[in-house]
């Protein structure tokens, strides 16, 4: 039985970190694929001459290296490969799990679609999902690698369930598979896992199901492995404070899109997990200034003290042009470092700590 939240944040503080305070900077995961990678996929799928498995693997490796390094260049403390090998957050996993079938694209919003799969029979672990991805990213990264993995509740909810009595039964079976995958990732050296459960924001009655899934997921995962949970685009008052009981270390939330209207939800009762705060909007190409982002970070300090605050975009950045996404990450890191320095200097109020430091303290 592990006890979470656990004390596992310090391992991500870079050796050359300048400030005493440390706001862990990260990303949710996805990133726009370079055009040449899309072109390579077309060649591969069209069975083009001279473009087979080897060439396709090499293209994905190149893209993963490129984006991992782009994350590092932006100054992030923990990096992801931008999910270059993944098609979509449900699709990618469904392709690897036995029991799923695909019938075509469906709308998510606007002109964003995904290949919503159908569960046609009981699910079973098929080929490995993310171990190869992690091992490659870890080998090219200088910074610690975070591994986002779609959670079982979302995998169950965002598929057409045509085999199980209900989504709950499907989610529990999937949770066992996620646990199996995370055990392998941990064996391979992963120390930061983010469970993506956007579907959690949608159905308040299902808190207990998600909690039960998480218990299965983290079973026998050691405490030094940081477990985050990403949730987005919902009415958070419907899941708070229940989420505090989950066996996780960090809760990652989209809040910029709604202009922090929901931030007060988390102030009562006390937020006992680490908060990974969305500080840039992934659905607008306008790059937030460092000053704007610093204001957003201060919103997070209403909820948790700096020791519990992680800084992140609202959600995956894959819909943004790369240069915009990069500029957002770069400003985000600059803003975090400036806030840290101001915290070191005692220039910032931390309402969540009950302190009222001011510039002339």
């Amino acid at each position: 039985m592990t006890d979470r939240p656990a004390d596992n944040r310090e391992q991500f503080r870079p050796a050359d970190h300048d400030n005493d305070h440390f706001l862990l900077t990260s990303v949710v995961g996805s990133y726009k694929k370079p055009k040449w990678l899309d072109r390579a996929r077309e060649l591969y799928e069209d069975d083009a001459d001279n473009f087979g498995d080897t060439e396709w693997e090499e293209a994905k490796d190149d893209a993963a290296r490129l984006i991992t390094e782009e994350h590092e260049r932006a100054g992030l403390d923990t990096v992801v490969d931008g999910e270059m090998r993944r098609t979509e957050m449900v699709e990618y996993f469904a392709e690897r799990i036995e029991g799923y079938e695909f019938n075509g694209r469906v709308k998510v919003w606007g002109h964003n679609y995904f290949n919503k799969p159908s569960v046609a029979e009981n699910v079973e672990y098929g080929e490995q999902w993310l171990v190869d991805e992690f091992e490659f990213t870890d080998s090219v990264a200088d910074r610690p690698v975070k591994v986002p993995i779609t959670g079982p509740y979302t995998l169950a909810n965002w598929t057409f369930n045509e085999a199980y009595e209900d989504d709950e039964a499907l989610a529990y079976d999937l949770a066992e598979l996620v646990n199996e995958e995370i055990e392998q990732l941990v064996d391979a050296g992963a120390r930061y896992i983010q469970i993506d459960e956007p579907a959690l924001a949608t159905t308040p009655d299902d808190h207990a199901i998600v909690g039960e899934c998480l218990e299965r997921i983290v079973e026998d995962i050691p405490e030094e492995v940081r477990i985050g949970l990403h949730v987005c685009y919902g009415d958070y008052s419907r899941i708070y404070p229940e989420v505090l009981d989950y066996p996780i270390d960090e809760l990652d939330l989209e809040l910029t899109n709604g202009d922090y209207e929901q931030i007060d939800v988390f102030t009562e009762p006390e937020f006992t997990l680490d908060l990974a705060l969305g500080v840039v909007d992934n659905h607008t190409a306008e790059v937030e200034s460092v000053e704007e982002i610093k204001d957003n970070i201060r919103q997070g300090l209403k909820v948790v003290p700096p020791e519990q605050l992680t800084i992140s975009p609202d959600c995956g950045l894959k819909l943004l042009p790369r240069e915009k996404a990069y500029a957002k990450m770069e400003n985000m890191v600059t803003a975090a470092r400036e806030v840290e320095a101001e915290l070191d200097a005692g220039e910032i109020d931390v309402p969540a700590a009950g302190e009222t430091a001011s510039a002339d303290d």
Partner: protein
Amino acid sequence: MTQVRSTTPGLFPVPDWAKDELANLKGRQKGGLVSGDESAEISDAYDRAREEVVGLQTDAGLDLVVEGQLRWDDMLTHPLAVADAVETRGIVRYFDNNNFYREPVVTGDLAATGDVATDLEATAELTDESLNAVLPGPYTLSQLATDEHYGDESAFLSALAEFLAGEAEAFPEVETLFLLEPSLLESPPGDGADERASEAIDTVAQATDADVVAHTYWESHRGDGGIDEKVYAHLMDADVDAVGFDFVANHEDNAYVISEYGAKDDIALGIVDGQNTLVEEPSEIAERVEWTLDNAHGVDFETAYATINTPTFYLPSGRFEEKLAALGAVERTEVTA
């Protein structure tokens, strides 16, 4: 003898080719979505896509053809998204689904735009079949939109009802009007609000000569499955020609309220599942029609609209087309009830 007429509640999936073409023209971010003043290129793509989905319906043999609402990026709130005095802000979750729409915020006096009428006119050019127009119901629209102008719930609901009535008045000749009211189940109106919801539906229904169907779907999240009895009792006071039920989500409860509280002369039977990819056989659909009519004790319907239970924008195009074909084939199968 009940006349069975096949139709759908609209909001079709965009054909696959148009998904790509329109994504290229409009982009994939909030700013590019439909605002009512699309470029000629975008309008042309939508025109071709509309022609395709009208053709699918006539080929399938559906009795009442819908426009398909392919332009409705914001699903049910589209009529507001293209109206003056409405700002579209951040994207917000659509009910409890993995879908999102831009939050429409009403900041001034609402006025109908004729946007839906224009699309219906274009549809009438494409087919000789009778048309079924589709609008969000006023109660549901009030739940999905934000008011920063009218000040209280009741005034906002009335304003939305008048707005929708204005849209309906501008329609070309249509045989039926489906008002989609999932919120009557999803977030049922409480005391007082239930009566106002019914009055608001009435306001829209009065604005058209078409037969009006107040179409409900999904399951109640607050009650125990079907439509709340009191909400239904008030709905029966609205001057609509039919109430629509989602018999896929819940057939027992729906049959119960019909037997207990009676029904309008006509009914819409949501008996094809718009929420999954299993394609029903025409005989299976016919059986469901028969079951619902047999189990509506004490009610003889003049017309029963056999329909997909929900809008279908969330189905893969291929399966959607197969479901249309199956529904269209029902009439040629015996329905003996």
